[in-house]
């Protein structure tokens, strides 16, 4: 005998301005099976919730319908209130008379009648609702962090320091990421490597962190709390246990002229190399694409000089398997390279460089040992033009967004240049100055006021070379948009920040969504910036969107906190709104015929095969089984099942039919 309680919310004026809430409550009271019907100003408030709890107890309610906003807003609120009053939370449903009614219609009788229809529908559903228990899933308390830049490092340390194990995977030979390439960082002008390397060492030495460098994620299966990762350790061609990092091999290697990735193309490295002196781990790698032995079968000089005989030419990639409970994506970003700005001559003129290349020039460990010398002839540039927004905020070039960090690093570059070349003349062509962080505005003012950087507001139309100089043709829009021409010795383009190469591939491997620029999508842009829509996978750093170091670190700690929260429970609790394959008494066991159309169609790979065996061990039939940890309750399998053997708890066939009939039979006696 159903005893349903209906609670109609005014939602202030949101609902009551267009829907006659008193009439809805009064009409609902007359529906057979409704034992109590009332309206109130704010059902989600404490008094409102208390009203529901009191009604459950006093009226012995067997079900609750709250006619109010969308369940996406307050379903947890009301279900929790019901649970506290002793009613199974899944016997509570919300009738959405706000987003589905009052917010989309004008005030009229028709609107009120629609609200009544919605309530009637949900009452019919609740009559068929069953009490459900939440699902518990075990949690492996190891985190996988993909990407060893500053964000990955921070996340690893935070998770490790909270007592859990971390596996850190980095695809380059050393951790450190782009931050290790920078010379000084804004707004403090801290030496980048000086503040980064202690963290890198901490990662290497931390007992809870296992570092796989020169490795990539091969595959990821499973679900939150229960992932199975396969990691490919690429062959360094040496035995890491024997290598002492003495570096003799890198000095003796005869193939010395390979463009160095770490030096952004401005310097050279040998075929066996350590990317930079403070690399962690400080063990070399043989670049098999350029090593004479792998190309021609000759040389092997490194093997001869190695004091511990650590070189292993025949080493192969190794696959490591790991069980993890959470994944943090911290794969970072890159800056746009290539000749996408033909009018600026990038790629054509050696002295037109990008931001990362400037960092290497300014860096004490860079190709010019920190001296400001231009790439073409090594001369000290007397006039340098910095072009901001070279690619960002540029729909014509395919990038609409602002890359956030360029205004700041351009000011920094101009300052560093001026510090090194006292008589030099730096110019910055800008559109706007975006300096919104702490001490950022002061930093830019310092560049303009103390270091004499000349800021010209206007974009550069083109750059060409003449007589050893680069002619920069821009405009000063603050001076009537007069064309302005500067003869520069070097030009630095602040190119757009873009997603790393391979971002799409990785996202597909771990099943996270990404946007049209291949930046990973957060679960909610305002309130859930470090989670993805895939349970158990979190984001940290610039892989989500271009950002600076303080934000990357903050986000990394945020992701680590989420992971720690996940690991703080012995088991994971999930809402049981999942699909279930039916069971019957023997000899049928189940109406499922084993066609497995559901398994093929399940987007979450949540359906497995289950063998039903008799007491004697004989196989009776193989039926489908839903993995309660993976199923997201999308209902695709339910729609496809030809024998109606699979159903969703909380949205069963019975419940949905009841809703439909209630709508069709309105005004007549309800089922």
């Amino acid at each position, binding site marked *: 005998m159903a005893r349903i309680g209906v609670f109609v919310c005014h939602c202030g004026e949101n609902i009551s301005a267009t829907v006659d809430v008193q009439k809805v409550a009064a009409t609902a009271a007359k529906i057979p099976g409704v034992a109590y019907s009332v309206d109130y100003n704010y059902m989600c408030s404490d008094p409102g919730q208390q009203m529901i709890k009191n009604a459950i107890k006093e009226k012995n309610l067997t079900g609750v319908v709250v006619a109010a906003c969308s369940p996406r807003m307050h379903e947890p609120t009301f279900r929790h209130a019901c649970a506290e009053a002793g009613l199974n939370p899944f016997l509570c449903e919300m009738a959405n008379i706000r987003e589905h009614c009052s917010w989309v219609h004008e005030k009229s009788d028709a609107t009120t009648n629609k609200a009544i229809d919605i309530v009637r529908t949900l009452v019919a559903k609740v009559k068929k609702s069953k009490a459900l228990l939440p699902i518990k899933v075990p949690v492996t308390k190891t985190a996988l962090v993909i990407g060893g830049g500053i964000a990955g490092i921070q996340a690893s340390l935070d998770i490790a320091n909270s007592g859990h194990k971390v596996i850190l995977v980095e695809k380059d030979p050393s951790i450190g990421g782009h931050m290790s390439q920078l010379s000084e960082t804004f707004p403090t002008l801290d030496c980048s490597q000086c503040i980064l390397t202690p963290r890198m060492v901490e990662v290497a030495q931390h007992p809870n962190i296992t570092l796989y460098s020169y490795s990539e994620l091969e595959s990821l299966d499973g679900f939150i709390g229960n992932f199975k990762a396969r990691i490919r350790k690429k062959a360094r061609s040496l035995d890491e246990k024997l290598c002492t990092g003495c570096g003799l091999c890198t000095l003796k290697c005869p193939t010395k002229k390979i463009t160095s990735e770490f030096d952004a193309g401005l310097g050279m490295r040998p075929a066996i190399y350590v990317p930079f002196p403070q690399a962690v781990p400080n063990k070399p790698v043989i670049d098999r694409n350029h090593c004479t032995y792998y190309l021609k079968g000759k040389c092997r000089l490194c093997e001869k000089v190695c004091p511990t005989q650590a070189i292993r030419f025949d080493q192969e990639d190794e696959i490591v398997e790991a069980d993890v409970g959470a994944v943090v994506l911290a794969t970072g970003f890159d800056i746009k390279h290539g000749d996408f700005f*033909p*009018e600026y001559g990038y790629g*054509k003129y050696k002295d037109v460089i990008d931001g990362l290349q400037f960092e290497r020039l300014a860096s004490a460990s860079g190709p010019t040992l920190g001296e400001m010398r231009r790439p073409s002839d090594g001369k000290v540039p007397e006039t340098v033009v910095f072009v901001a927004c070279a690619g960002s905020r540029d729909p014509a070039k395919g990038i609409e967004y602002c890359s956030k960090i360029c205004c700041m690093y351009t000011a920094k570059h101009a300052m560093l240049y001026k510090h090194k070349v006292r008589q030099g003349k730096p110019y910055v062509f800008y559109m706007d100055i975006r300096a919104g962080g702490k001490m950022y505005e002061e930093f830019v003012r310092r560049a303009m006021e103390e270091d004499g950087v000349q800021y010209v507001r206007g974009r550069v139309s*083109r750059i*060409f*070379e*003449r*007589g050893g100089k680069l*002619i920069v043709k821009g405009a000063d829009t603050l001076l009537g948009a007069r064309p302005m021409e500067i003869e520069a010795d070097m030009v630095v383009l602040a190119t757009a920040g873009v997603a790393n190469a391979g971002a799409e591939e990785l996202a597909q491997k771990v099943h996270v969504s990404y946007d049209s620029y291949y930046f990973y999508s957060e679960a909610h842009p305002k309130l859930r910036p470090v989670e993805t829509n895939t349970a158990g996978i979190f984001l940290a750093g610039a892989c989500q969107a271009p950002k600076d170091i303080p934000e990357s670190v903050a986000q990394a700690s945020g992701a680590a906190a989420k992971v720690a929260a996940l690991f703080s429970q012995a088991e994971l609790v999930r809402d049981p709104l999942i699909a279930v394959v039916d069971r019957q008494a023997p000899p049928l066991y189940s109406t499922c015929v084993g066609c497995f159309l559901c398994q093929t169609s399940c987007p979450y790979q949540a359906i497995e095969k289950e063998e039903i065996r008799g007491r004697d061990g004989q196989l009776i039939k193989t039926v489908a089984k839903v993995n309660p940890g993976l199923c997201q309750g999308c209902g695709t399998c339910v729609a496809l099942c030809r024998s109606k053997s699979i159903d969703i708890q909380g949205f069963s066939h019975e419940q949905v039919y009841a809703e439909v009939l209630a709508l069709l039979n309105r005004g007549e006696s309800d089922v």
Partner: protein
Amino acid sequence: MKTGFYPGCSMKGSAREYSESLLAVAAALGRELPEIPDWNCCGATAAHNLDQDLALALPARILAAAEKEGMDEVLVPCAACYSRLSVTRHELLEDEKLRQKISGLIEADYRGTARVLNIIEWLSGVPDLESRIKSPFARRVACYYGCLLVRPAGILKFDRPEDPQSMDLLMKKIGAEPLDWAFKTECCGAGFSVSRTDLVAKLSGLILDDAVSRGAEAVIVACPMCHLNLDMRRPNIEKHSGKKYGIPVIYITQAIGLVLGIEAKKLGLQRHKVAVKFPPPADNPPSADAPATAPEKSGQKYLPGEE
């Protein structure tokens, strides 16, 4: 594939040598170029500056006539006419209402089937060109594209708008050394040749200055307006800049004609303001990586009056 020919008004007057050299080259290559019958002026800059409907109607009448003749494509050697005809075709194909309106104006149903070709496309499409070279054009040249051959790139889809290479490749094919220079697509001053000759002097002067400073021995053009501004207005340029420039300006068809062995007079070289001649190698040292050009091999044939 029937290729028609739209000469454009200047080919009959100030750009006569362009027409002469083009027809001579076509004859030498055995290519027919039937003119569109009763063609009218495309309107050039004047029409689109004053009235947009007129600016579409004039080219539409031309292209409709070409279609009526069964022409699949039309060669338009003048860059300005090429631009007007291409833009008209594009706009009328994009906007059906506009196409109907303009068809009504020109009293003919314009369908947009005839493709519009510029001179470089036509010359690059000649398959047997290299085999016909009698003596290569072994000079350092600055290929000047001007504005309307490559822009607006979205409509013309011809060559890249920054640092285009099609004319350079063509010149390289016939033995020249095309230079990398900075004013390939900067405007010469266009239609201001008469009304604001001072501005033409300034803009064309910048172009010549850059070409000469990089060691170019000739500027190659594919547009009558550019030729007029760079060649006929040479005295104005020299007066404005206070410098003398002896560099000749040669139409691409004249350069091709020369390598095919056609005599200079037939190519109209004598109609230029700036004499088309090259100083002997002693006064004009080649760039460090160019092969030396002995006068016997290349120079003499190109001196008018010495044939």
